[in-house]
């Protein structure tokens, strides 16, 4: 067994806890997960069957950790050892064609959390250095600038200045004692900076005390995407330390799918402790402020709109109703696409896929299912995409499939349709 294989297998075994073991022990090889996976549906390739993507990890477990594995080894009935060639062959399946979106779990009669187990399997791959170049580069950028896209504080401050000018509202950086500290994804800062202005407008109206940290503005956690707990912890530590130094009560996770899971659900487990602040998603904050009457809805957007459900916010994040309530109050003609909600298709770029140029073609193929969903809504004019990464995938995908559709962030829509102080509420 080569060193690479030894490292990977050791990590596979280390991360096969009783939860992952129960999944490996319950799978009946029924193949229903394939019918839920956009990569399999778009390509028709049996290798894209979600449970097949876990095979090296399953093999390692069944050979070396499962009950009766010693007995089976003695009788020559244990599975063969995992080889380096297999690990390399599977690398594409583990990184390029799994968004860790969790749709397969809904179709699985055993309820196997394949997405969560892929996350654990990536620990083995990351430790053994079997990671796509795109993700390696993103990790390098994070080391240098804290951002996977290399967004520096200088660049952020320039965007803040633009938005202050556009809204006429001051955005305070490093304000100690603020109630809320906002984080953003690099994609939002550089691609959709209007979101900064939207926050400023909404929070000013709500009378919220908020700030942005100059050292922890980045929410994206490339460590979670690559599957490296030590890297994920290091990235997270920066945000936690900054939030605790600024003595904020809440940290707002932005419209970015995996960033929410990384800090809200994985965060305390990575750090080994609970935080001195509460982590809330921007959608939760806006929904709460709306219910409290602090950001009343005004004139609704009259366009026919639908909502994309970012998998890590909706299916794996638990925020199913909140964006719909906000959208209903902001839009005259909100229609759901077929399969909306928990079972909605992922954009195809989550889980590090969009940061991996090698997966570009596959990602575009997977988007064909999203395009089909969108085309199924008659006279659709816009799609609300509450995730910066999904948004960028949508831009590429709509372009590839020659679709003319406006893409809007939810915070921006809520800000745009906010009632004027003297306006009758919508």
């Amino acid at each position, binding site marked *: 067994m080569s060193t690479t294989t030894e490292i990977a297998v050791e990590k596979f075994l280390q991360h096969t806890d009783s939860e992952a073991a129960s999944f490996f022990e*319950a799978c009946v*090889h029924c193949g229903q997960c394939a019918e839920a996976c956009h990569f399999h549906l778009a390509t028709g390739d049996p290798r894209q069957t979600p449970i097949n993507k876990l095979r090296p990890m399953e093999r390692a477990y069944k050979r070396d950790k499962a009950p009766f594995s010693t007995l089976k080894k003695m009788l020559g009935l244990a599975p063969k050892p995992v080889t380096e060639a297999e690990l390399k062959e599977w690398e594409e399946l583990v990184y390029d064609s799994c968004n860790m979106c969790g749709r397969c779990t809904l179709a699985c009669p055993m309820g196997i959390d394949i997405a969560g187990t892929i996350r654990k399997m990536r620990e083995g791959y990351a430790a053994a250095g079997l990671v796509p170049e795109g993700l390696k580069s993103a990790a390098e950028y994070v080391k240098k600038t804290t951002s996977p896209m290399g967004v520096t504080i200088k660049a952020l401050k320039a965007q803040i200045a633009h938005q202050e000018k556009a809204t006429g509202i001051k955005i305070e950086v490093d304000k100690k004692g603020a109630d809320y500290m906002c984080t953003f994804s690099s994609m939002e800062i550089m691609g959709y900076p209007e979101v900064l202005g939207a926050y400023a407008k909404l929070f000013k109206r709500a009378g919220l005390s908020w700030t942005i940290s100059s050292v922890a503005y980045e929410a994206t956690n490339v460590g979670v995407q690559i599957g490296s707990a030590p890297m994920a912890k290091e990235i997270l530590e920066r945000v936690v330390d900054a939030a605790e130094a600024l003595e904020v009560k809440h940290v707002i996770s932005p419209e970015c799918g995996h960033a929410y899971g990384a800090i809200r659900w994985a965060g305390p487990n990575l750090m080994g402790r609970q935080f001195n602040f*509460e982590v809330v998603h921007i959608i939760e904050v806006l929904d709460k402020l709306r219910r409290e009457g602090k950001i009343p809805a005004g004139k609704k957007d009259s366009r026919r709109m639908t909502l994309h459900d970012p998998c890590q916010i909706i299916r794996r994040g638990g925020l199913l109703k909140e964006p719909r309530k906000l959208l209903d109050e902001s839009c005259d003609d909100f229609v759901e696409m077929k399969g909306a909600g928990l079972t909605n298709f992922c954009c195809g770029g989550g889980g590090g896929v969009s940061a991996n140029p090698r997966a570009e073609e596959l990602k575009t193929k997977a988007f064909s299912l999203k395009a089909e969903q969108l085309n199924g809504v008659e006279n659709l004019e816009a799609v609300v995409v509450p995730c910066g990464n999904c948004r960028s995938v949508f831009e590429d995908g709509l372009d590839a499939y020659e679709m003319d559709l406006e893409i809007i962030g939810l915070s921006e829509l809520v800000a745009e349709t906010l009632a004027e102080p003297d306006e009758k509420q919508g």
Partner: protein
Amino acid sequence: MSFLNLVEGPLFSFAAAVFLFGALWRLIGIIRIGRKKDISPPKASAAAGFIRGNLRHFIPRGIFAKRTMVHIVGGYGFHLGLFVLVFFGAYHIDFLNERILGFSWTAMPRWAFLITSAIAFAGLIMLWVRRISDPVMRLISNKDDHIGSWLTFLVMLSGCFAMEQAHDSLRATHMLLVDIWLVYFPFSRLMHGFTFILSRGNSGATYGRKGIDL
């Protein structure tokens, strides 16, 4: 001691013991691996999610139904059919009463037994044909899947032959296959009959504490 007495007596006791202790050993083995306590602040109860996850996955989601219809029909037909045959077949109730439990309950009529057998057979055959014909199934299936299917098929088939109780040899063949099936169970994928509770429950708990009804 006749062959029938052997397979219904000491061999059955041995097989039942292997089944029980083997299954228990495997379940405890899985649980004993343990997992780190999730310390992220929960939104809802993980325990409730464990139960909900188990119940929810009994009902296939509509959106996947069309693409997975063969599996749904075959799976439900086979599993429900087998359950009813094992626990409501007159000869099985007699066997359980006399050999193990010491009490009995009302058996289903013969016509219902025949219909249920047909449904269970059709389901099992559908599942196996899909296993050998569908490219996805061919890729992910292994020997264990086929042995489990065939062994179960042979147990059911020999059971049908033994129904009339006309020949001891037919009943003995059925019981021998039952004994083999019981011994094979804890070491094979047939264990999903128990491990599904852990699998569904673990996902249900993970999602449940996030407030998601999986």
